[in-house]
């Protein structure tokens, strides 16, 4: 091999530029396992939500258990938040290796180092964009769910390469006894145990102050959560307001009617009074956002199943639910047969004891068990049996 040019040994290239004993394979291995686990849960729950919203032909999401979606997306955001201190701690630990010279030793090293680019860029990108998204801040010009989703595949691929490259060193680091590094460092700085403890404590502080946005017993601690499950009109949050959806006038039109069309025996057009005269149903279901917050709400309305029977549509159909909202990706949603036929899937007219607030979808909104919030279509104008 030809000799590489000698670099001036300055800055991070200087011999002994990084003095801390914490830049060790053992610290990296321990943080790596924690981060890899959190990232994998985050990835799987994220992909799941994507499949539920844009189901591939082989995928069907059931309507039960009713609270499953809520748990998966609470986990998605919580594991993402925990990953922030884990990632920053991990990158700090291995940072000196960025400056290793020569940069590449052989072919396997090249394959491994190339994967670090999408791994580091992807992890930082995913956590930054995820945090910005739950903070409702969009400084970029791409559609967040799509950009975040495809970045997660790139990052997952890079993580698989990385695991293959590091599996044997992680195994040997974890089976080796290593009492020396646990002792106090000569500089009086944090020991490895202290450092890992601080990273864990940071994850703990972030979790305790945010997870109350979905876990109601911790609601009062959620001082840093972007949402409070008990704050909003009628006691729970709104994601898209009637104003931003552009429905303030049409939703209040006294001539409102719900149309039922598609593969039905008779098409229906039901006024609000017609709807109120139908057999009422009641249910308690969460409204659960992909952004990690959720709230349990008491709903009253008419079962979708009841309306379909009135129109003479049999069971086992999918149903498209259309909104008065003129445009936007979330102006309609599909009920697969499991959701359409579930007796708890309602066209809600009331929630928490009052008529729906216009920001919660007045005059009529969809609410069903085990569905993402963006698919609980508000300001419903039409059911189309498919």
């Amino acid at each position, binding site marked *: 091999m030809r000799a590489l040019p000698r670099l001036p040994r300055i800055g991070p290239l200087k011999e002994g530029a990084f003095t801390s004993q914490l830049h060790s394979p053992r610290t990296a291995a321990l943080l790596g396992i924690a981060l890899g686990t959190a990232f994998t849960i985050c990835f799987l729950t994220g992909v799941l939500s994507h499949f539920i919203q844009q189901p591939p032909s082989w995928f069907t999401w059931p309507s039960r258990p009713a609270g499953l979606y809520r748990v998966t997306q609470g986990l998605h955001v919580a594991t993402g938040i925990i990953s922030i201190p884990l990632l920053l701690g991990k990158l700090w630990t291995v940072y000196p290796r960025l400056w290793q010279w020569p940069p590449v030793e052989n072919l396997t090293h090249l394959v491994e180092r190339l994967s670090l680019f999408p791994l580091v860029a992807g992890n930082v990108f995913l956590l930054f964009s995820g945090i910005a998204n739950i903070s409702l801040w969009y*400084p970029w010009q791409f*559609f967040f769910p799509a950009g975040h989703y495809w970045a997660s595949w*790139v990052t*997952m*691929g890079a993580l698989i390469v990385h695991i293959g490259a590091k599996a044997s060193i992680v195994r040997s680091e974890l089976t080796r006894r290593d009492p020396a590094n646990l002792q106090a460092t000569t500089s009086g700085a944090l020991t490895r145990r202290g450092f890992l403890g601080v990273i864990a404590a940071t994850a703990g502080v972030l979790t305790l102050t945010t997870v109350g946005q979905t876990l109601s017993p911790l609601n009062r601690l959620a*001082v840093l959560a972007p949402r409070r499950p008990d704050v909003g009109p009628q006691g729970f949050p709104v994601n898209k307001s009637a104003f931003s959806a552009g429905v303030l006038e049409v939703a209040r039109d006294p001539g409102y009617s719900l149309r039922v069309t598609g593969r039905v025996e008779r098409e229906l057009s039901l006024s609000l009074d017609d709807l109120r005269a139908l057999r009422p149903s009641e249910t308690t279901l969460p409204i659960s956002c992909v952004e990690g917050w959720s709230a349990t709400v008491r709903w009253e309305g008419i079962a979708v199943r009841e309306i379909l029977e009135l129109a003479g549509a049999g069971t086992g159909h999918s149903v498209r639910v259309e909104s008065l909202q003129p445009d936007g990706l979330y102006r309609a949603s599909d009920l697969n047969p499991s959701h359409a036929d579930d007796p708890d899937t309602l066209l809600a007219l009331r929630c928490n004891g009052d008529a729906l607030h216009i920001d919660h979808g007045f005059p009529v909104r969809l609410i069903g068990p085990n569905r993402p919030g963006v698919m609980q279509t508000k300001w419903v104008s039409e059911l189309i049996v498919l």
Partner: protein
Amino acid sequence: MTAPPPGRRTFWICAALGWLVIGYGVSGLFDNASRTNPDQWVRWFVGSLIVHDFVVAPVTFAVGALVVSRIPRRIRAPFQAGLVVSAIVGLTVWPLVRGYGLRADNASALPNNYLAGLTMVLVVVWSAVALFALRRWRRRT
């Protein structure tokens, strides 16, 4: 020819699979260009790496060096701990504190006073730091 050692085999299987998955992600990015806007996406993706490796990390190491040279040895560890927690929590909630996502038509979005929340968290963290530091100071004198 002898079989490759087990570590080697794992490496190449994971490398092949991993780069395949990366390829899937990249192709999805371009197949959905109308939504992902690859030009913008790449800028933010690469920017994430640059900002971390050449801004966040150097600043962290510079602050770390300052701590080692300025903070007395026996309270150095709790001080470092306090800085790590404060910096990461502060960075994470910065968009909330600045209220970038506030919107006039939706009072349920970002309903808290995040500056007050962050201040409260920092007071708790630095109280714990002070307690630890005091204990260490006493023990060593």
